[in-house]
Every structure is written in C-alpha cells, then in structure tokens.
C-alpha cells in the first residue's frame, strides 16, 4: 500500500517549481496585479483612464523601437511609455483639451508602432504577443523583470501614499500641507510607465489599461477607505489572473483576454450584488 500512496516523485518546491510554465505564468499574473491594484485605483480616482490607455498603446511603438535598435523590449517600452506619459502631462499642464489630445496621441502611437514593426523582418516578430500578451511564454528573466517592476511601483506608492492621496483629493489642500501636487502627479506618471512596460508580456498593450481599471472598479463597490479599495483591487486582480489562466488552460482560450474577462466577471458580480444589497 505505502508504495502506491507515496508520490511518484518528491513534491516540487522552490526554484524547480519555476520550471513549469503555468506556475511562471501564475506568478507573473499575480505580480502585475500587485502593482496594478493600487495604481489602477489612482487612475480611477484621478480620472486618468484614457491617460493609461494612451501610455499602454504607445508601448507598441516602444516594441518597434526596441526591435529596430536591438535593445531589450522592456527597456524600449519603458522609454516610450515614459515619453508618452511626459508628453501628455505636459500638454495637460498647458491647458489642452485632453479628450481629443489623448485620442489623437493614443491611436497615433499604436498605428505608428504597428507600421514600424512591419519593417522588422517577420521571423523575429509575433505581433499578437505584444497586442494581447504572451503570459504562457514568460521565462525566469521575465519573471524577475515583472516582479522587480511591480515591487518598485508598490514601494513607490506605499512610500508616498498619504501625499499622493492628498494631492488626488485637492491640489490646494496638498499645497497647504506643503505637498507639491505636480511632483505627486509625476510619481504616478512614472509608476504608470513602469507598469505598462512590465505588463506588456502578461496582458498585451491593448489590455493593460483593463488590468488597471477593472479590478479597481470592482473593488470600489466593496471598500470603505482608499486603502481598502487598493488592496481589494490587488486581490481581485490576482484572483482574475489565476482564474483566467485556469480557464485559458481548460478551454484553450488566449490567456491575456481570459484574465481580463475573469476580472470583468468579478466586476459584474460585485456590481449586481451591490445593487441588490442597496435594494
């Protein structure tokens, strides 16, 4: 009996576990959710949803740049996302009508990126991987990059939390407390660029903004404080990543869109239950 009961090989622990691509994918998804939860909450509170979209779409241009210059994809994405975020902030500060400006920038950057990628020899490029993510192909180096980026963003947000929140409530209130609201805005811009760069591999350029907004929006219905909403968003994002991966494995659907679909399902459930509870 004992020989049958015993596992065929010892339970895999530690580094060896990372050899399984599904495990790596799950860890990558949770890493992105960790950073996207609190940052996505700020994106919602500050009504920056379209801003997030523009930065994420620009990531495709970053991919093209990286391929052309033969630099790491993450670096190219980070640079272009930073440039886009800085451009948008600069235009906003000069009083441009942001709705139209963001629309022009977001779609131009996406289109330009797609055109630029078409000049790169086809053998090297799987375009859909950049548009929709390629989480099942996440390697150990990717994992390290994703988690380094996620921890950097979470660390930044936790460190400046009270200042960021005050500046989000009101510029005047912040200034009266000796907080520079423009500097806090810059911190969020920086964090957004980092999240875009590391999430590209996981959900793809077209759905990064969804990972920022949907878990946070779902958590809104459950939270009484800003901190509660940010942590709820992390939980919902991580759950969605795992559920989406599971579904993707089960039904052979694309992983990135499956993760976002799972998040959307959670949002729907919370919204419906919230409505029922309020009567």
């Amino acid at each position, binding site marked *: 009996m004992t020989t049958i009961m015993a596992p065929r090989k010892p339970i895999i622990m530690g580094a060896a576990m990372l050899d399984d691509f599904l495990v790596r994918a799950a860890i990558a998804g949770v890493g992105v959710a960790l950073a996207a939860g609190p940052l996505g909450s700020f994106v919602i509170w500050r009504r920056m949803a379209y801003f997030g979209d523009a930065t994420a779409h620009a990531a495709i241009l970053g991919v093209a740049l990286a391929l052309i210059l033969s630099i790491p994809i993450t670096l190219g994405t980070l640079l272009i996302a930073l440039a886009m975020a800085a451009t948008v902030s600069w235009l906003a500060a000069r009083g441009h009508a942001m709705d139209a400006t963001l629309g022009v920038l977001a779609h131009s950057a996406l289109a330009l990126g797609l055109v630029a990628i078409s000049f790169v020899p086809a053998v090297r490029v799987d375009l859909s991987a950049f548009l929709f993510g390629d989480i099942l192909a996440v390697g150990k180096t990717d994992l390290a990059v994703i988690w380094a980026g996620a921890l950097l963003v979470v660390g930044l947000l936790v460190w400046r939390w009270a200042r960021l929140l005050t500046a989000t409530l009101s510029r005047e209130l912040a*200034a009266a407390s000796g907080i520079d609201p423009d500097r806090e805005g810059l911190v969020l811009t920086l964090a957004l660029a980092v999240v875009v760069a590391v999430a590209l591999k996981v959900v793809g350029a077209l759905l990064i903004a969804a990972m920022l907004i949907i878990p946070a929006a779902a958590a809104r219905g459950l939270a009484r404080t800003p901190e509660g909403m940010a942590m709820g968003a992390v939980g919902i994002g991580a759950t969605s990543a795992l559920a989406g991966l599971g579904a993707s494995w089960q039904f052979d659907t694309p992983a990135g869109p499956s993760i976002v679909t799972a998040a959307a399902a959670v949002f729907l459930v919370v919204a419906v239950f919230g409505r029922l509870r309020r009567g």
Partner: protein
Amino acid sequence: MSLLAAENLHVSYGGAAVLEGVSVAIEPGEIVTLVGPNGSGKSTLVKAMLGVISPDRGQVVRSRGLRIGYVPQRLHIDANLPMTVARFLSLPTRQSDASVSAALDRVGVPGLENRQMTALSGGQFQRVLLARALLTDPQILVLDEPTQGLDQPGEAAFYELLEAVRRETGVAVFMVSHDLHVVMSASDRVVCLNRHICCQGTPKVVSAAPEYRALFGHGTHGALALYQHDHDHSHDHDHGPAQADYHGGGHA
C-alpha cells in the same frame, strides 16, 4: 514678523492680468478678510499664497515652519474614491482616534467618524473640513468662502464656531468672504481687492472708504451695504476696465 505675506504679486492667465502688484500680510492672531467682486482675483490670491500657483512677479513669504490649516471653497470628492470621515481627517498626517473624535466634537459634529464623506450634508462637510484644518494645530487658518452653499443659519453658525475657535486658540485667520455683514462684525482688518488692493484697514475705515463704496455701496452711504447682503451686484462688469475710477471717490 508676519506669518504669511504676499509681496507685490502679479499673476495673469493667458495674458489677462488677474492680480497686479498685490501686497498683503497676516500677523499672528489677527482675522483678515478679503472682499471683492466676482472675478476680482480673490481665489487666485489665496491660491498664490498657498503656493498652488506661482506668480509671474513678486513673492509669497511664509514664516519658518508655518503650519497652515486650509478650508477650501468646496471640495469635490470623486464618487469612486471611498473615504470615511476618520480617514479624511488623517490626511496627510496620521491622527489618533482620540484626536479625530475630539476634533469632530470641537466643530460640533461628534460621532461622524465612520460616515462616508460623500454622504455628509453641506454643513457637516464644511465642519469636517474645518476639523481637518484644526488637527494640524495651525498658526493660521486660510478659508476661501467657507460657507458657500450653506443656508443663512448654517452660515451664521459656521462663523460663530470660527470665532470661538479663534478665541480659544489665538489662530490667525485669512478668509475670503462675500458676506459683508459677517465681514464687518468679525474682522480685525478688511482688504478690498479688485485685481489690485483698492483699500484696506479696520472694518470701519474700509466701509467709509470711497473705493469700497464704489465697489459695494450702490451709491448709498456705504453703511447700508453692510447689511444688504447683496450677492449678485454687477460692478465688475460695469467697472472692470476702468479701475482708476475707483480712486476718484464714490458715486454721486
């Protein structure tokens, strides 16, 4: 030394001058009220003094380590930002539960800690804003039309509370108001602004000044204006470009 002073401030938006050479200083413990018609630059002056906008020329001088308690005109909290009263009072500096509840007691709205900010009435909201401003133990309170949106009893109660707080703590107050009767009863000094400072001094001196009467007096003897509570006079439109007129004496 002044707590907070503006020195020869010039501010313009898109080429249009909003403030032209404004100097004003607030000394410890005094109540200074800023009055002026709509569009006269009152809110701009407050924002410049808080450091939200930087002036084209001139400077704002804060005394070393100055703690400002700011009560804005209104504060819009996004419906997607969950925020209890207690959490709000702990921004940006974490406060103990005891001091939060003491602050709410002090401004006459005890027990609101766990309510959502968006569920408060206008009067409760303004009192919570005042409680937050007081929690940092400020040397100066800056209030920008703090009673806008309150009905008249609410307004009177708010100013009574403010005066009581001033008596207890000796905090200086720099306040924007269009409630002329309140201004006159509560202020040590009134500053009358219309892009530049038209006149300033004790309420008595200012209400007698021809520049003040030109702005608020409707050609009466000025004293009447103190009690008229006139919100929508249209002097700024009539007299906007012709500022020099204000110095030429009252209307006949």
